């Protein structure tokens, strides 16, 4: 089994925040350009669309948007590139992709029984069951 790696050597750290920003955009463009092949590999045509996956990628990038240290940004980009390589060379499986990138905050287990068994539950209770912060 030959796993082809996209880039084995690590580029030197970015000097300024601007360089880190442009590297982030390059990574984002690379990821978006590989989305059609990802849809083909994992057969996601019924489950998600390309724009859905694109917005999930950008929301994950945006989660770390507050960071100002260029070295930390480089490290995050390295991890993101590694993840992208894994996905593109079919090292992951369909349920990984669906669970991590297609589903939103509800996660893998969708408890629809809640609505059927306990329809009188208030919005407060529903929020309370999902998380501590609301």
């Amino acid at each position, binding site marked *: 089994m030959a796993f082809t790696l996209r880039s084995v050597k690590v580029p030197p750290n970015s000097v300024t925040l601007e360089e880190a*920003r442009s590297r*982030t*955009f*390059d990574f*984002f*463009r690379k990821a*978006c*350009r590989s989305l059609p092949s990802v849809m083909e590999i994992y057969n996601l045509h019924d489950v998600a669309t*390309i*724009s859905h996956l*694109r*917005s999930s990628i*950008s929301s994950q*990038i*945006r989660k770390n*948007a507050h960071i100002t240290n260029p070295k930390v940004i480089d490290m995050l980009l390295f991890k993101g590139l590694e993840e992208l390589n894994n996905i593109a060379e079919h090292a992951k499986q369909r349920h990984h992709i669906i669970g991590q990138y297609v589903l939103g905050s509800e996660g893998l287990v969708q408890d629809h029984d809640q609505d059927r068994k306990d329809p009188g539950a208030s919005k407060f209770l529903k929020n309370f069951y999902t998380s501590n912060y609301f």
Partner: protein
Amino acid sequence: MTSIVGATISVPSSRSLCFNQATPRISGLKPVSVSIQKKSFPSLKFRRSFRVSCSAKPETVDKVCEIVRKQLALPADSAVTGESKFVSLGADSLDTVEIVMGLEEAFGISVEEESAQTIATVQDAADLIEKLVEKK
């Protein structure tokens, strides 16, 4: 002895023959044509750029507006015209890149990084799309 004399006589004549053949060939036509081409280029360029800036089709602009509106989650009645800048509609730099990628996917083109940096308004994006679709 006589053969040596004969040999020495024959050498200078051959040298003079070589001299006659080695005349440099100057082609005076070439430099003149290049200058004519140089003169006509600037006017062509000027005309072409003038044409592209005002020729984005309205349906292209509408499609771009639709994609922008969906990406930035704007309500359906917000004013998105050709001159509205992405920044004024509430998009940060990542949103701009994402809009460009959405346009790439919708129109089946591929935008270079340098041209993507220069896009600031909806009209810029529509013009770039027109140019790339024409080239295909």
